[in-house]
């Protein structure tokens, strides 16, 4: 049984209210027969097609080359097993849902004037397996494959969308500010999967960060990933109750790596997986730098608390879990 899930506007499938702590970062999940199920590809390699459509300044061949490089970034993660295969050019469009082809290409969506690109899925609702995924890149915007100053970098945006393509949700490792004309502007970010793109000419998101690597490795773990990495678990509490959807960042005191996660139930429980063994500091903040509906399909998100450091240093072991601890936050 297959059901199409449209997830335009940056994979709004996202996570529904879950009963148990899920992983770090967000894995796109569905509730199937009462169970929260992370969606992922069961086949490997994942075949993808490149659209023959072009855009001003980017030929179809240039598009294919840039997207292929973006797939390569995810495929090169040594602790993950996800693999891709370029299947050729196609005249099929990304908007052609449920055609059995995973197509990436340019499309014009002038009505979506804040959406650079988006990913859609066809999911097997019995197993949660992704059976088709398409990505469009909106020609309402200017694109470049060279990092040209006046255009958005195609490879950077493709790297983000391919994160969705393999089942990853958004990361909140970033800071934004409101713009006078509406919307938000990124001040800084530390994850390709942050939902708001860097500006024109910026190629930063061509390179995966520790947060992205932990995410893909957790979804598609290589054999030594689980025994070589550990889990940080705890709860976010406010006035004696749990906080749902608080953003939790684990900071490695040894490497400086940041990996984010969320408290994912009413008890405020979180679990950040895929951490290199070592000592971590923990910081909790409300999910107030982005639109929360690009993370959670749940109205009960609590953002009325102040950013808080845990007063507990956490030792994360290899192949296991650190002892659980509470981070108590205060209302704003």
């Amino acid at each position, binding site marked *: 049984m297959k059901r199409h899930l449209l997830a335009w506007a940056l994979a709004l499938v996202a996570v529904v209210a879950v009963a148990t702590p899920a992983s770090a970062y967000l894995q796109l999940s569905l509730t199937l027969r009462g169970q929260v199920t992370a969606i992922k590809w069961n086949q490997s390699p994942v075949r993808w097609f490149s659209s023959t459509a072009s855009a001003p300044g980017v030929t179809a061949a240039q598009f294919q080359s840039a997207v292929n490089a973006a797939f390569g970034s995810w495929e090169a993660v040594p602790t993950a097993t996800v693999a891709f295969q370029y299947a050729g050019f196609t005249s099929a469009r990304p908007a052609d849902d449920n055609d059995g082809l995973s197509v990436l290409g340019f499309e014009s969506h002038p009505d979506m004037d804040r959406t650079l690109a988006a990913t859609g899925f066809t999911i097997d609702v019995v197993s949660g397996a992704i059976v088709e995924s398409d990505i469009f890149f909106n020609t309402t915007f200017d694109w470049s494959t060279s990092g040209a*100053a006046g255009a958005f970098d195609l490879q950077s945006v493709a790297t983000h969308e391919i994160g969705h393509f393999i089942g990853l949700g958004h990361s909140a*490792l*970033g*800071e934004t500010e409101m713009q006078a004309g509406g919307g938000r*502007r*990124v*001040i*800084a*970010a*530390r994850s390709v999967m942050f939902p708001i793109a*860097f*500006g024109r*000419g*910026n190629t*930063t998101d061509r390179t995966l960060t520790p947060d992205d690597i932990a995410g893909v490795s957790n979804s598609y773990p290589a054999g030594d990933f689980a025994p070589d990495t550990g889990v940080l678990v705890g709860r976010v509490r406010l006035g004696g109750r749990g906080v749902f959807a608080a953003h939790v*960042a684990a*900071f490695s*005191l*040894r*490497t*400086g790596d*940041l990996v984010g996660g969320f408290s994912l139930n009413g008890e405020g429980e979180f679990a950040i997986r895929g951490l290199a*063994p*070592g*000592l971590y*500091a*923990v*910081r909790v*903040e409300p999910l107030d730098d982005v639109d929360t509906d690009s993370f959670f399909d749940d109205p009960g998100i609590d953002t009325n608390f*102040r*950013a*808080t*450091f*845990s*007063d*507990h*240093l*956490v*030792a*994360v*072991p290899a192949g*296991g*879990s*650190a*002892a659980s601890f509470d981070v108590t936050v205060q209302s704003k």
Partner: protein
Amino acid sequence: MTRLILVAGALLAGLPSPAVAQARPTPARPPAPRRIELAIGAGFAGGVTLGTRDATLQSNNTSGSPFRLFSSDTRLSPAAVVEGRLGYRLTPRLTIEAAMTVGRPDLMTSLSADAENAVPVEARETLTEYVVAGGASWRLLSGARRRWTPFVSGGAGLARHVHEDRVLIESGIDGYVGGGLIYPLGSARTTTPRSGVRLDARLHLLSGGVADGAGVSPRGVLTGGVFVTF
């Protein structure tokens, strides 16, 4: 002829008579040196600065320059230590030694300068530190008279850092140089005292373990204790 007889007489007179030698008491032989030294002590290990590190994001500009989310400053607190030592005296001056030192310092990280004004905190955990080292000490004065005898020492070994709940154990290399004073107790006639007091001052250089990523971290250690010899 007369001269030869006198010389012979003198030579004979100079030789001890076997009968006479057997009648005299055997001179006391010096006692065998005590070579094994066992010591126990306690003291104080200074703090270790493990460095500062910023948690950074990448700024939204073409250079991707760092944006500081917050700052961290990590250190190992000063702590009391206990120490056991086993030595083997190769010569009156040179002793090879193996020692184990145990302490429970706090590992502390100051988290501050938050981009969203989180209240600065001092995050911490308690660590159990074991250092097992081998080395040598050289006494600058020989003999075992009742006096303070200075020595120098040096060595290296393994540091094991056991984090709270024993979920994580990190290992590093610990080298040291130092010196101190030994004061013998008991008989002053033996070449090695039966017991004594030993004071150590050492500079330790820690690499790895909780200092992984912080380079080589120095700290001072002062200990005092007693020893016995066998």
